[in-house]
C-alpha cells in the first residue's frame, strides 16, 4: 500500500526545494546561481513564512556555502545546499574536503555548462568532473525523480554504514525551469521516511563518541595526516562508498513501497535491453527523450533499447556489464565535453566496465547537447540508426566518439 500523495505543477528546482523542506533540514547554506536559483528562492519563501525550522545561511560565495555546510554537518546538523557549474567549480576544494571528513551533506546540482564561453544552460561536464571527489552521485531524469532522489539522498548519505555526501543532478532549464506534474509526499509521511540525522559514532580511547563538534565530548576534526595515516583514511572512505552500494538499492526499494515509484535497482533502469540489437546508454533528462524514441522504433520493429544510468557514484560496473554484455552494439550519449581523452566520463566507465566480459559489444560515444543545445527525438533516432547500421554491417565508424547535435 502506498501513501497518499499530492499532485503539484512545479518545476525541478521547486521539487528539490520541497524535498529539502520535507527533509527537515537544519541548515541550508547557499549562494544564487542560474539555473539553481529557484531552489534557494523557494526555500527562502519557506523560511520567510515560518514553514521550516531551518537556519538559512545566505553566504557570500559557493565556497562558503559548502564550507558552512561542512561546519554545520560537523556540529550535527542535517545540511543541504544547491549550486551549479561555476559555483561547483568554485567549491571544488570543499567538495573533496566534505567527503573526506565524512560529512553527509546533500547538494542539488542544477547541471549547467562551465564557462567559457559563459553559458547558463544544461550540460553535465561540471558535475561529471566531480566524479573523483568521493561523493555519491545520482542523475535525475525528471522533476519527480529530483524530488524523490533528494529525499532518498538524505537516507543514503546519513546511513550509519555510509556517512558520505550525496549530490543529485538535474539538467539545467530542461528540468530546473520546466513545469511538470510532481507527486509530493505528505509532510508527515516524508518526515517518517527521512527521520532525524544521527551523528556517526567513532571510538576514542575505547569509548564510543559521536563524530560531532560538541563541548560535552570534545574531539578534533580535520587533523593533519601525512604519509603515515593519509592512505588509511582514504581507504576508509573507499570502504564507505562500497558499503553504500546495497544501501542505495535498499532505500530505492523502501521508496517504491512508500510511493509506488521505483528507479530500477537504484542504479540502472534498462528499457527493452534483453533482445536489443542496439542500446543507448545515457543519463538525466536525455534518458526520457531516448526512451520515447526507443519505444517508437520498437513499434516499427527495430530492436533498440535504453539503459539509463541513474547512480554514477558508486558506479554500477558489474550490473552494467551483465546487462550490456550480450548487446551487439552500444552507444553512449553524454552532454559532456572532454578533450584529449578517448571519450567522456560515462563513455569511459561503460567501456571499462565491459572489459572483463567474454563478449563485448561495439561501443560508440556521442558528445552532444552541450551548453543547453536541444537534443531532439530526431537526434536520438539518428544515433539509434547509426548503431543499428553498425550491427548490420559489422563495421564501426572510424571515430570512437563523435559530436552530435552540432552545426555542420
Amino acid at each position: 500500500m502506498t501513501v497518499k500523495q499530492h499532485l503539484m505543477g512545479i518545476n525541478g528546482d521547486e521539487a528539490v526545494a520541497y524535498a529539502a523542506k520535507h527533509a527537515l533540514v537544519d541548515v541550508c547554506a547557499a549562494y544564487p546561481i542560474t539555473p539553481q536559483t529557484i531552489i534557494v528562492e523557494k526555500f527562502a519563501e519557506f523560511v520567510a513564512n515560518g514553514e521550516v525550522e531551518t537556519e538559512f545561511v545566505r553566504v557570500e560565495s559557493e565556497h562558503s556555502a559548502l564550507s558552512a555546510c561542512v561546519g554545520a554537518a560537523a556540529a550535527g546538523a542535517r545540511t543541504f545546499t544547491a549550486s551549479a557549474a561555476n559555483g561547483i567549480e568554485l567549491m571544488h576544494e570543499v567538495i573533496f574536503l566534505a567527503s573526506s571528513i565524512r560529512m553527509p551533506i546533500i547538494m542539488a546540482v542544477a547541471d549547467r555548462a562551465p564557462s567559457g564561453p559563459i553559458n547558463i544552460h544544461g550540460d553535465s561536464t561540471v558535475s561529471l568532473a566531480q566524479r573523483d571527489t568521493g561523493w555519491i552521485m545520482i542523475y535525475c531524469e525528471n522533476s519527480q525523480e529530483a524530488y524523490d532522489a533528494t529525499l532518498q539522498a538524505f537516507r543514503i548519505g546519513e546511513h550509519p554504514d555510509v556517512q558520505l555526501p550525496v549530490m543529485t543532478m538535474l539538467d539545467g532549464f530542461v528540468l530546473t525551469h520546466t513545469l511538470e506534474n510532481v507527486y509530493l509526499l505528505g509532510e508527515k509521511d516524508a518526515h517518517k521516511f527521512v527521520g532525524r540525522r544521527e551523528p556517526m559514532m567513532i571510538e576514542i580511547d575505547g569509548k564510543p563518541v559521536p563524530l560531532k563538534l560538541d563541548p560535552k565530548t570534545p574531539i578534533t576534526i580535520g587533523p593533519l595526516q601525512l604519509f603515515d595515516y593519509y592512505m588509511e583514511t582514504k581507504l576508509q572512505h573507499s570502504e564507505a562508498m562500497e558499503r553504500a552500494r546495497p544501501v542505495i538499492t535498499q532505500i530505492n526499494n523502501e521508496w517504491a513501497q512508500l510511493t509506488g515509484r521505483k528507479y530500477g535497482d537504484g542504479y540502472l533502469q534498462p528499457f527493452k535491453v534483453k533482445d536489443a540489437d542496439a542500446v543507448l546508454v545515457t543519463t538525466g533528462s536525455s534518458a526520457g527523450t531516448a526512451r520515447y524514441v526507443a519505444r517508437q522504433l520498437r513499434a516499427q520493429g527495430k530492436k533498440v533499447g535504453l539503459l539509463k544510468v541513474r547512480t554514477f557514484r558508486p558506479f554500477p560496473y558489474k550490473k552494467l556489464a551483465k546487462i550490456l554484455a550480450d548487446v551487439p552494439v552500444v552507444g553512449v550519449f553524454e552532454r559532456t565535453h572532454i578533450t584529449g581523452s578517448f571519450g567522456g566520463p560515462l563513455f569511459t566507465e561503460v567501456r571499462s566496465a565491459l572489459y572483463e566480459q567474454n563478449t563485448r559489444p561495439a561501443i560508440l560515444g556521442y558528445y552532444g547537447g552541450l551548453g543547453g543545445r536541444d537534443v531532439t527525438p530526431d537526434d536520438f533516432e539518428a544515433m539509434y540508426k547509426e548503431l543499428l547500421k553498425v550491427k548490420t554491417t559489422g563495421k564501426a565508424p572510424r571515430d570512437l566518439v563523435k559530436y552530435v547535435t552540432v552545426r555542420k
Partner: protein
Amino acid sequence: MTQEKSEWRPRLKDIADQEELFTSGQRLCAGCPAGTVARMAMHALPRPKNTIVSNATGCLEVASTIYPYSAWRVPWMHSLFENAPANASGIEAAYKARKRQGLEKDIPDLLVISGDGSGFDIGVQAASGAIERRHNFLYIIYDNQAYQNTGIQRSGATPKYAWTTTSQVGRAVPGKPTWKKPIALVYAAHDPAYCASASVSHWRDFMVKVRKGMEVDGPAVIHVLSPCHRNWRYPEELGMKMAKLAVETCFHPLWEYDGDTRTYTMSSPSMRYVKDPDKKKPVVEWLEPQGRFRHLFRPKRRDDWIQDFQRLVDEDWEFIQKLTNMG
C-alpha cells in the same frame, strides 16, 4: 543594543589554576608565539567548557593536530585555508536551528583562529561575509607577517622591505615593494560588535580583548601580532621582545573598536606614546635585530630606506591617533 562590558582582569594566579585547553606537546617551532596566542586565548574564554574552535590551515593548525595527536581539549575543527569563518557560520547555524527544535540545550561560544595568510589574503571574503551575517564568533588573526608555514612567502601582512622567499632581496629590488594592509581597520569598517589590535607581548591587554570579543553579542575580530623567528631572523628566545618593540615603536599600535558606540579607542600600552611622544622608539630599533631587514643595514646602511620605513610607520600612527581622537 547596549552590551555588558567585561570587567574581567586576568590574574596570573587564577590562570595557573585553570585547566590547559591548549596543551603542551604540540610541534610549533621552539619560541613560536603562536602557541602563546592560542594558550592565552584559551585561558581568557568566558565559557571554556562550552566553546568550539574553528581553525584555518596554518602553522598553528598543522603543529597542534598531527594525527593521531591533538593539543586541543575543546571541540576543534580544521577544514581548509580560507574558510574557517564560513565553517564557524555553519557551526553556529547548526546549534541555532537545533536549539530551536529542542535538539540542543545551548549554543556554544565560537572562536575562529587563523594566521595572516587567511586573515589578510585568501580568507578575507569568508571573514567579511561572516561578519556581515552577524554570526556570534570571535576571529583571532595571529599575524606573523608572511606565509611562514609554507616556507616564508610574502602575504598582505608583510611590511615593505621585508625579505621573504617571494620578495627576495636582490640587486634590483630590496625586498617587498609595498606596505602591509591595515587589516584590523578593514574588519572594523564592517562595524562588527568588537574589533581590536593586540600584541602577544602585552598578554593582559590581549586576554582582556579576547574576553570582550567572546562576550559581545555578534562578530568580533582581534588582530594580534605574533613574531616568527624563522622569517624575522632574530634569536628564538626574543619573540616577546620583538613583539613588544613593535608596540613601542608604534609600528603596531594597540587599539579597540566598539560596535555599540562605533568608536575607536587607543589601548593603554599605546596610549603611553600618545601622551608622551618622546617615549616612542625609532622603528630602526625594531628593524635592526631582524635578519629580514638586514639589507637596510648591511653591507651598507641605507638611511633612505630606513627613513621611508619610519615615514610609513608614522603615517599609520598619525592615522590611528586621528581615529581614536588622539591626534
